């Protein structure tokens, strides 16, 4: 069986895995990082999104061996050393952007990638389009979109869409 070495939430992890082990299974079962959820079997729901080398990826649609050598960040890795929430987490709480919370870890990982890759600003349309890989069955998305828009200025330290104007 292949051995993999990767960095998860800034800590080294080495393990022997079956070739068929999905990254999400490795994170949840081998590392105990159960914040990353499995919501579907069809790569559609986005509950399993994690960051791999800075890009949001569905960890249910990637083999653990494919993450060999990668830097992985899960929802557990967002919290600051002082215990402070990431601005995206804080805004999800502030704007009541979750109800049952099952989609939230993946939604937050996708939203952070979306905000980081749009330093020029984000419109509501772009936020909705950018989150189409994440399904939420509770909120109707309005508060999620508000939370992402509210996190943008905190992450870029300037008012949203000022850069675009």
């Amino acid at each position, binding site marked *: 069986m292949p051995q993999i070495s990767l960095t998860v939430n800034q800590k080294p992890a080495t393990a022997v895995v079956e070739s*068929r082990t*999905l990254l999400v299974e490795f994170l949840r079962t081998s590392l105990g990082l159960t914040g990353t959820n499995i919501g579907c079997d069809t790569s*559609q729901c986005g509950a399993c*999104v994690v960051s791999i080398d800075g890009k949001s*990826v*569905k960890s249910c*649609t990637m083999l653990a*061996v494919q993450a060999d050598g990668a830097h992985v960040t899960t929802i557990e890795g967002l919290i600051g050393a002082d215990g402070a929430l990431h601005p995206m987490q804080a805004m999800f709480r502030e704007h009541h952007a979750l109800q049952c919370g099952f989609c939230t870890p993946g939604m937050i990982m996708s939203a952070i*990638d979306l905000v980081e890759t749009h330093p020029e600003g984000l419109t509501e349309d772009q936020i909705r389009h950018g989150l*189409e890989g994440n399904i939420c069955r509770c909120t109707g998305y309005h508060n999620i979109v508000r939370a992402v828009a509210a996190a943008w200025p905190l992450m870029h330290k300037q008012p949203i869409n000022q850069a675009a104007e």
Partner: protein
Amino acid sequence: MYDFQYQKPTTIEAAVAALAAEGDAKALAGGMTFIPVLKQRLNQPSTIIDLTDLGLSGIALEAGKISIGAMTTHGAIAGSADVKKSFPALAYLAGNIGDRQVRYRGTIGGSLANNDPSACYPSAVLATGATIVTSQRRLSADDFFQGMFTTALDPAELITAVEFPVPERAAYAKFANPASRYAMVGVFVAKMPGGVRVAITGAGQNGVFRHRAMEAALDKAFAPAALDGIETPVDLMNADIHGSAAYRAHLVGVMAKRALESALA
């Protein structure tokens, strides 16, 4: 998922040799279709050959031609300044495949080798008459696609690049399935130096096909009105829970006009 051996070769020659060594070895590109297929136990390869380290990713713009490495992701194509400038219809197509996470990993070569009848890229490749470059030869788009999930590729042959001739005008219009984002009907219209080509994906029983009646009409007049009254044979259309054959035949006409409007915009 059934278990398998995993290999990650670093040269095309080694990858081809590994595929040839075992009859039921399979190549893994971005895995956005293949891994879900494995999860559902619809395929049981003995060995998976990961193509990530073959150095097949990249976009090169030459005179009148864009060459795209097989392992280039949809996201990289959608975001490429060269593609956006010289062939915006392709950037648009790539930017609307699946979702952000799929576009980070899914590749053009993987999509073409799979030849899903609802995939977007086959329409762009066929409409522009692109060339599929493989580990052993060059294939024209007209020869490459051979029906649903079927291509001219040999079992141990890998796509290495796709060469698109840059069209004078082009556009893609997709009616996406709201859940999967796959094309229920996708129409790619390209005005090439040698004439207009129209390729339809998502709709046909045998995968992507050229709509010759539309091509002939648009060669006379490159305008939406030229498509008035042009029929799409219902008996060639796919029918499933998402739409009947008659519905798809109708959508082909509607989406072709939208593609044309956007090519002229």
